[in-house]
């Protein structure tokens, strides 16, 4: 009854093989299906993409879009829109010696004929030098390119490269700066605004500078003719709009051509207006008197000071005047005749600390905070300075600033007493004027007008008087410091800092000549009244009509405030 226990029975071999085969087939079918699906998906994706491109895609032939005019580097223009720097495509010619198939001697002879800077032997040596790539000429003239192309030599490669061009050549060269061989800004505004000029989002719009090309040209030309006439080694000039702080013109001589800036003399590359620091001499006296008026140490233009022939400073140094009074003199007379003694006495009244505060507020102790990278820190004594130093600074020595500092100081004093940062970017709706800080009171600013005008009508700056434009200004002559210490007895830095029109000041300008020589025209004088002052007058007479000013012989500053305190010499 007991059922037999099932014995372990193996499946017949044949059956087992059949089962395995089916299984394999199944797997193979599955894999094939997956493979087909994959192929199908890829084909479908390609088809879909083709359809998509066909319906919505860009045209294949499209190469240059409307944005192709976007220059590789933005333009720089003056305030009237005149281009000062542009990027153009220029021809570059290069030689690849390995690809030269013709006779190298003939090629060298042809090259020396077309580019005579090297003779045939020189060019042959260049070709055989083993270099793979030689620049024959960058910024090549079209005629040369045509002639080189006509040689039919495959080793000569012609290509177009973006190149920075300064169409106005020397004009405002120190402001614009230049670019290096890779097209990056190397100096000036090119360097300061390098990101702005290369960024695709901003380079389409030109960078508008505050300077005016015509005014800049007038200033440069007059300064250059003064430099030549007086045989000076250099010159600088700055013109500021005192209401906005815009630099309308700024130049430094010797001239610099930014198109070949790398090959220029270092003397020409040096920007005297912002990098050179000079003791400005008597032009500082205006600030000393203004400080004393502001603090109340000078009550009025008639206040008297003992201006005798000499004055011993606390350290024992003795100072004298070039036009000695030999009597007591009024504040008006001190300014008019540029008395060192009188100004030193006024500065002593103001005191060293207050003097330093004023100078700090006017920005005379720091670099000028504006766009150019080339700017110098003024040289000044370490605070606190003693009384003798206060008196010395009072008449413009023992402290060296740039001409731009000086122009900015005059702008501060005569725009109502508010310091504004100078700027090289045009002030408009997008770039509002920098906020100001008050340094002098409005009253002081007003009172100083007639004082400065007096210097030009009756004092040392008579030659700066451009008839009808009511020029006010101050001459400054300082001996040039020698490299080994001490001061030169023969070389001066002469300057004239002024404002016009004096009845309603609008523009401040500084003109400076470096080491002018005496001429027959100046009767042997080398002082500012004989060279810087007439240059200033000539510049004003030329640029004032461009600035929209018209001469008026009936208007003037309120001279009634100062004339009663000037003794008429008989």
């Amino acid at each position, binding site marked *: 009854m007991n059922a037999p226990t099932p014995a372990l029975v193996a499946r017949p071999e044949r059956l087992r093989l059949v089962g395995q085969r089916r299984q394999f087939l199944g797997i193979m079918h599955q894999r094939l299906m997956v493979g087909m699906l994959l192929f199908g998906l890829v084909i479908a994706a390609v088809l879909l993409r083709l359809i998509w491109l066909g*319906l919505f895609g860009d*045209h294949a032939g499209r190469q240059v879009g409307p944005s192709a005019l976007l220059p590789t580097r933005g333009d720089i223009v003056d305030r009237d829109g005149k*281009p000062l720097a542009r990027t153009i*495509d220029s021809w570059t010619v290069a030689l690849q010696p390995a690809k030269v198939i013709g006779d190298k001697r003939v090629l060298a002879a042809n090259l020396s004929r077309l580019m005579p800077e090297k003779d045939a032997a020189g060019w042959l040596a260049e070709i055989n030098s083993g270099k793979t790539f030689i620049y024959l000429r960058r910024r090549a003239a079209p005629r040369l390119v045509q002639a080189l192309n006509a040689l039919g030599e495959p080793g000569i490669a012609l290509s177009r490269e973006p190149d920075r061009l300064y*169409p106005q050549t020397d004009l405002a060269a120190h402001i614009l700066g230049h670019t290096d061989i890779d097209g990056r800004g190397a100096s000036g505004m090119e360097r300061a605004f390098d990101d702005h000029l290369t960024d695709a989002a901003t380079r389409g719009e030109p960078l508008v500078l505050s300077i005016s*090309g015509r005014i800049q*040209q007038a200033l440069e030309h007059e300064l250059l003719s003064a430099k030549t006439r007086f045989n000076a080694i250099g010159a600088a000039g700055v013109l500021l709009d005192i209401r906005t702080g815009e630099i309308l013109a700024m130049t430094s001589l010797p001239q610099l051509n930014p198109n070949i800036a790398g090959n220029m003399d270092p003397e020409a590359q040096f920007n005297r207006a912002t990098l050179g620091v000079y003791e400005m001499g008597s032009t500082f006296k205006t600030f000393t008197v203004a400080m004393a008026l502001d603090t109340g140490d000078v009550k009025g233009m008639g206040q008297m000071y003992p201006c005798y022939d000499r004055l011993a400073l606390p350290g024992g140094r003795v100072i004298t005047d070039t036009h000695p009074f030999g009597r007591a003199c009024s504040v008006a007379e001190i300014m008019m005749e540029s008395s060192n003694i009188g100004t030193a006495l006024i500065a002593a009244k103001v005191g060293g600390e207050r003097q330093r505060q004023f100078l700090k507020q006017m920005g005379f102790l720091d670099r000028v905070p504006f766009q150019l990278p080339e700017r110098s820190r003024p040289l000044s004594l370490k605070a606190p300075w003693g009384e003798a130093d206060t008196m010395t600074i009072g008449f413009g020595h023992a402290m060296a600033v740039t001409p731009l500092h000086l122009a900015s100081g005059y702008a501060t004093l005569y725009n109502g007493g508010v310091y504004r940062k100078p700027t090289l970017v045009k002030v408009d709706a997008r770039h509002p004027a920098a906020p100001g800080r008050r340094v002098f009171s409005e009253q002081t600013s007003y009172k100083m007008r007639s004082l400065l005008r007096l210097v030009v009508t009756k004092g040392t700056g008579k030659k700066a008087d451009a*008839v009808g434009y009511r020029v006010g200004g101050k001459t400054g002559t300082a001996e040039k410091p020698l490299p080994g210490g001490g001061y030169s007895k023969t070389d001066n830095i002469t300057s004239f800092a002024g404002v016009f029109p004096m009845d309603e000041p609008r523009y401040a300008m500084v003109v400076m000549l470096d080491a002018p020589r005496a001429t027959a025209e100046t009767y042997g004088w080398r002082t500012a009244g004989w060279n810087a002052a007439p240059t200033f007058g000539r510049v004003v007479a030329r640029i004032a009509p461009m600035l929209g000013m018209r001469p008026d012989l009936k208007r003037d500053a309120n001279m009634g405030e100062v004339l009663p305190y000037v003794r008429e010499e008989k």
Partner: protein
Amino acid sequence: MRGFREVGWVIAVAGTTLGCYMVNLRVASERAALDEVSNRIVLAQRDIRVLQTEIGTRGRLEQLESWNVRVLALSAPQAHQFLEGEFQLATLAAPQKQLDPSAPMVLAAAPAQPKAVVGGAEQGAEQEGRAARDLLQVASLKRELPASADEKAVDKAGQAGAKPVKAEAKPATPAAADKKIVPERKDKAAATPAGAAVAATKAKAKPKAASPTTSTKDSKARQ
């Protein structure tokens, strides 16, 4: 028939697809043409820019300045070369007042009193007074003048010139009656200052100066 429906569908879909593709192709070709125009515009703008740069470089301010220094020698205007306005400009262009010797003489201002008349002018005294008054009225323009007022005034002025009234008149010289004195009269007239109390009025109608007497008086009045 059932089988053909499917074929129809395929044909319809294929046709529609082809149609769409044709439209698309057409649009693409139009777009390409537009791009071509845009490209040409851009290239033209680039050329303009290059030319502007070249012109700007050749005519740069420094170059103009050197031409001015060498050739033109123009300089900035001086203060006295600026004018206040149209009136000052008009004064520069105002014609110089020139005396016409043949014009009759009239008093510029107040009418002459009949009593003050000297010489042979008594008979015309009343007429003279009226003539002067009329002139004043013409000058002031305070009343409406008759249509021929101008001519009348001129006529009267002519008469007034022909018979001048002058208290300090010098006695006539006999030789002055001759017609030969005409050039001399001109000289004398030219020597009379423009701003003097007497003014010459140009008369269209010649004064009745044909008679030697009146011409003598005229010449005397001008002295």
